[in-house]
């Protein structure tokens, strides 16, 4: 269900620089990085978006018409009114830092860790920003488009056990 017109108008009234669009019944708002946290806090506190469905990221490297490299995506839902809204925020290298929203939704903890693990987006104020899926000693961010699909040797850099060693 798209966001209610009152929600969209409230966002537009409070954040003049937000760009709103609708595509196949889904409301999307592009937020500048400076007002990202304020907008999410506003939606959480005033508009009742109490469910953070997901945080994910898109790497637009070599993508046509793309200006910034990374697109951070927040999917929110209001359980009371069944409204859903997508907040997007574009980031470019070298400054890949956004404020953490763990203070708004506790469930953002592992989602932000996954985005950090796969894309290397740094969430400032996160209580425990470690890798969540890959081993701690991993050095790359594998879902970035400039990372080779077959890796850089991580999958075969292990000792080989022979019969007499085991």
């Amino acid at each position: 269900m798209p966001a209610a017109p009152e929600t969209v108008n409230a966002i537009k009234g409070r954040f003049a620089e937000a760009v709103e669009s609708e595509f196949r019944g889904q409301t999307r708002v592009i937020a500048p990085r400076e007002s990202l946290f304020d907008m999410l806090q506003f939606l959480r506190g005033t508009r009742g978006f109490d469910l953070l469905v997901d945080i994910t990221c898109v790497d637009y490297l070599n993508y046509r018409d793309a200006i910034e490299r990374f697109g951070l995506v927040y999917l929110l839902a209001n359980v009371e009114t069944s409204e859903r809204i997508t907040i997007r925020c574009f980031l470019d290298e070298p400054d890949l830092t956004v404020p953490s929203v763990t203070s708004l939704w506790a469930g953002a903890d592992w989602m932000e860790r996954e985005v950090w693990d796969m894309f290397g987006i740094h969430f400032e104020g996160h209580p425990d920003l470690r890798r969540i899926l890959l081993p701690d000693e991993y050095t790359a961010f594998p879902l970035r488009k400039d990372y080779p699909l077959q890796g850089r040797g991580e999958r075969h850099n292990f000792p080989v056990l022979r019969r007499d060693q085991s």
Partner: protein
Amino acid sequence: MAVATNPQTGLPDNVMVSRLDALANWCRKNSLWPMPFATACCGIELMATGASRHDLARFGAEVFRFSPRQCDLMIVAGRVVMKMLPVLQRIWQQMPEPKWCISMGACASTGGVFDTYCVVQGIDRFIPVDMYVPGCPPRPEQLIQGIIDLQDKIQREGTLSGKEFALPQRQQRKRALVELPIIGQ
């Protein structure tokens, strides 16, 4: 009642002559205790193989133990990622000799369709494998056939002291550590 004597050997008829190696192999092959290293959908077929319809107990291999110290057959069922491989190697090292390994399914044997940065392209690059079971996933009949073939192998070349594990051809890696060219790079 007296037992008759075999005229050829001079031994009573209730005495059988064999090699000690053959006796040990016969005991070992009919009491394989599998270590289920099930990481993916092959593990479901592995469970089906142990369950009542296919009944691995018919071949003496039904005692799945979840401690490697009590096992002598590791069945690697499913894809192994680079985070899991050190665990796999440690479990393999914890198993007591003599021990064997079955690589079950396309993913464990070759990486399958998962030619990505984290999936190990065949466990035989890093641990010794005795039998490969093809399939995606293999049916329980295929796994049972693999276990029967492994039993034949144990009976054929096993020794009491495990000397066959020290043979040069057993020491060789099955596959070279050569990476395929990266597509599109």
